């Protein structure tokens, strides 16, 4: 049994949200460079250059890339031999969010669904726990912006729709999203499980690095095919027209019920933010 202090967890979460919001991943910056090389549209190339410049300013000033610093999503894998001491684990995570968003000058975007009253500290975080073997704790912070999240959908397809039906659903969803989710986007696709499991798989898919293919070679091929189809839509960066509508497409697949084919598409804007810590 290994002990982890609640205060250590709070500090890690605080730092992760500030880091994720101010420092764009090298994988995304490299994808921007490729788009500047390949996009046929001069306007598209100009937009991507602006995004690179924005990332540079954010890093230099340690200010957020985007004013929408997201709802605080956390994936927490807790080793079964870990014992949290000195406080309540959930509260320690939320306190990390409170401190990160307060001390990091990040926008607080959490509000009551009906009254729209802001909770003022960006809590509660959306926390997905998993219990894993070992004596470590892995925390992945995913600040999730609203514009792209609003373009996400779940559908319960008929099993007869098959893989072709899934591809069609994903491409149509991105086409219908148009300029709204701040393209170029990253597209998380969750297939299988139940209604809610497919959505969780789609969200988890967004924590991959750009270019990190599915370990199943057949699914890796499907990811590339769907990415190419999306980039033929012509929507382009910011929807101004171009060949870079998505930077990547990630599929996560699990078995489902014999009667079902759940499919979820979780759309992520170009500020694809996720950082992790292992305690």
């Amino acid at each position: 049994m290994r002990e982890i202090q609640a205060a250590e967890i709070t500090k890690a979460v605080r730092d992760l949200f500030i880091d994720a919001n101010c420092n764009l991943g090298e994988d995304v910056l490299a994808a921007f460079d490729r788009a500047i090389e390949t996009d046929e549209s001069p306007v598209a190339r100009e937009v991507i250059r602006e995004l690179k410049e924005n990332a540079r300013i954010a890093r230099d000033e340690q200010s957020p890339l985007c004013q929408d610093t997201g709802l605080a999503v956390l994936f927490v894998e807790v080793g079964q031999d870990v014992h949290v001491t000195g406080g309540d684990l959930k509260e320690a995570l939320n306190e990390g969010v409170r401190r990160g968003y307060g001390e990091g000058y990040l926008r607080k975007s959490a509000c009551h669904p009906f009254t729209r009253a802001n909770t003022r500290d960006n809590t509660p975080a959306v926390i997905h726990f998993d219990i894993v073997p070992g004596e470590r704790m892995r925390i992945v912070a995913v600040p999730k912006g609203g514009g792209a999240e609003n373009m996400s959908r779940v559908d319960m397809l008929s099993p007869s729709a098959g893989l072709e039906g899934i591809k069609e659903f994903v491409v149509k969803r991105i086409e219908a999203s148009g300029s709204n989710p701040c393209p170029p986007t990253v597209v998380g696709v969750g297939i299988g499980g139940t209604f809610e499991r497919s959505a969780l798989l789609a969200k988890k898919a967004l924590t991959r690095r750009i270019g990190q293919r599915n370990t199943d070679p057949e699914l890796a091929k499907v990811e590339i095919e769907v990415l190419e189809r999306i980039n033929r839509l012509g929507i382009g960066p910011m929807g101004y027209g171009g060949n870079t509508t998505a930077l990547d497409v990630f599929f996560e697949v699990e078995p489902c019920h014999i009667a079902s084919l759940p499919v979820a598409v979780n759309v992520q804007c170009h500020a694809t933010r996720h950082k992790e810590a292992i305690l």
Partner: protein
Amino acid sequence: MAEIKLKTPLTDKDVEKLEIGDRVLLTGVIYSARDAAHKRLFDLIQAGKELPVDIRGQVIYYVGPAPAKPGKPIGSAGPTTSYRMDAYAPKLIELGLKGMIGKGNRGAGVVEAMKKFKAVYFGATGGAGALLARSIRKAETVAYEDLGPEAIQRMEVEDFPVVVINDTKGNDLYVEGAKKYRKP
């Protein structure tokens, strides 16, 4: 692609000459307002009451900025998705609003109102909040402080970079742009 410098407030003549795809640098005063502030403005109009800001000739920026760090006028301040303001925008345009800055597609009712009452919809680069904040020299809350990041702010901007998405003739850059680069 032309690059045009404009000073706010805007006149009919200013907006009529704009075409989709034009890059415009805005200088002067603009006002921030997003979901909750729009609902309040709309409710005041419905009740026949005076608005906290005279919107004639003005430009509204759909933005909820991040908090300002000490010594800075504002935090990151990029556009939010505009369609959520579609229910309220035609009424504001009818009352004299000349420009909106946001990102993403507008509904038919807004495009129609822009044609009828002469107004334009500008796009700013979504997610470029740190970059765009540099063009905002001063910002002060003028209404609805209780809304936090959704309060209405009066912003003094200098060469704030935008692109014309919808002009006064009913054209749409999103439609034309995607058409041009779409592949079979």
